[in-house]
């Protein structure tokens, strides 16, 4: 456990957290290690816990029909699957795979219930607030762009209105 506390103390999100609080977090959050190639989450599965990555590297993939595409990476100090902590009846939005041997701590609803005043838990919550807020901003900007395209359709002459293909490209940020 001392090595886990040491690993946590190196993470930016725990920069102001006393060692005793990190020790309590380690006692309550089971450490889980994954070898290269292991699947941590599978898209569509029920989501019941999140993972704090202590070391290693994960990649996230989305499967749609016959297509699979990498949609992101998760590295040391980041959290994956956090939706499970506040929307426990949801489903995994992506498949997450270890592309390097990875050490993690498993976080779940029970941990938050048992130790609400723990400084490390508070630091996690503050970190997650910033992370989720950034994702919302990004998604809302995409929706706003689509609304603007709709406004152009209403007012522009048909020959000048963006085609559906152009609207999709705009939505993706390709134009």
């Amino acid at each position, binding site marked *: 456990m001392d090595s886990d506390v040491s690993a946590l103390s190196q993470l930016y999100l725990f920069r102001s957290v006393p060692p005793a609080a990190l020790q309590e977090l380690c006692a309550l959050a089971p450490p889980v290690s994954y070898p290269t190639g292991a699947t941590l989450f599978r898209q569509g599965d029920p989501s019941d816990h999140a993972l704090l990555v202590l070391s290693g590297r994960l990649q*996230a993939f*989305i499967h*749609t*029909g*016959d*297509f699979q*595409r*990498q*949609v*992101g*990476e*998760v590295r040391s100090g*980041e959290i994956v699957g*956090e*939706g499970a*902590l*506040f*929307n426990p009846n*949801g489903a995994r*939005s992506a498949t997450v795979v270890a592309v390097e041997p990875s050490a993690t701590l498993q976080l779940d*609803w*029970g941990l*938050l*219930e048992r130790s*609400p*005043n*723990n*400084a490390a838990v*508070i630091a996690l*919550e*503050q970190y*997650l*607030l*910033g*992370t*989720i*807020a*950034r*994702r*919302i*901003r*990004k*998604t*809302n900007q*995409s*929706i*706003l762009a*689509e*609304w*603007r395209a709709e*406004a152009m359709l209403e*007012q522009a002459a048909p020959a000048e209105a963006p085609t*559906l*293909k152009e*609207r*999709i490209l705009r*939505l*993706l*940020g*390709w134009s």
Partner: protein
Amino acid sequence: MNDDLLRSQAGALLQVHRFPGAREDALVALLKQGVPLRLPDGAELCREGDQPDALFFLLEGKVRVMRRDSKGRDRELTIETAPAMVGHMAMVDGSPRSATCIASGPVRAIALDRKNYQELLKEATPRGTTLRRLLLSSLSQQLTDANERLLGLLAAVEQQLSGDQGELEEITGEHVMQVAGVLDGWKMDVQGAQSVEVVQTGQQPRRPSR
């Protein structure tokens, strides 16, 4: 403000936003840190573009949430009905207000100003925990709702495209999948039409974005 109203609306708000360790008395204690407001019909709670100075707990009534489109017209995003939290996004990330909120009928609310908000966010107390987790529960659900909305828009677009030429159909499958990455909040880092690498929001992209 009447304690019965606070307690009943605190309980109702916790039915909307469930989170570990939710306690009605802690939320009431949190609400009592704010300033009660009474707004008549048409009064503005906050304005798009302004710097955030408070978040609001809607206790009675409704507010229209409006945003300007590219032509400068106000468009209604949604109607928030009590009990609800309003204006919290801008407080969390410090960005300007993304919408204007206008009372639709008489409204009673509580405003939690920036000073109290920032102090509570750090508190290792039941009311501090309640504020953090209420925000997290709300933001989490908001992201899910926004993603579903975007998916609905794209599904409608794809339906129209399915009647077009084969070239568009081939592109659409790939594009829809990539949009799924956008829906999950992953940042698009585009190198070209044939290859797209998506990096997680908040990370530095390894190659320049378009």
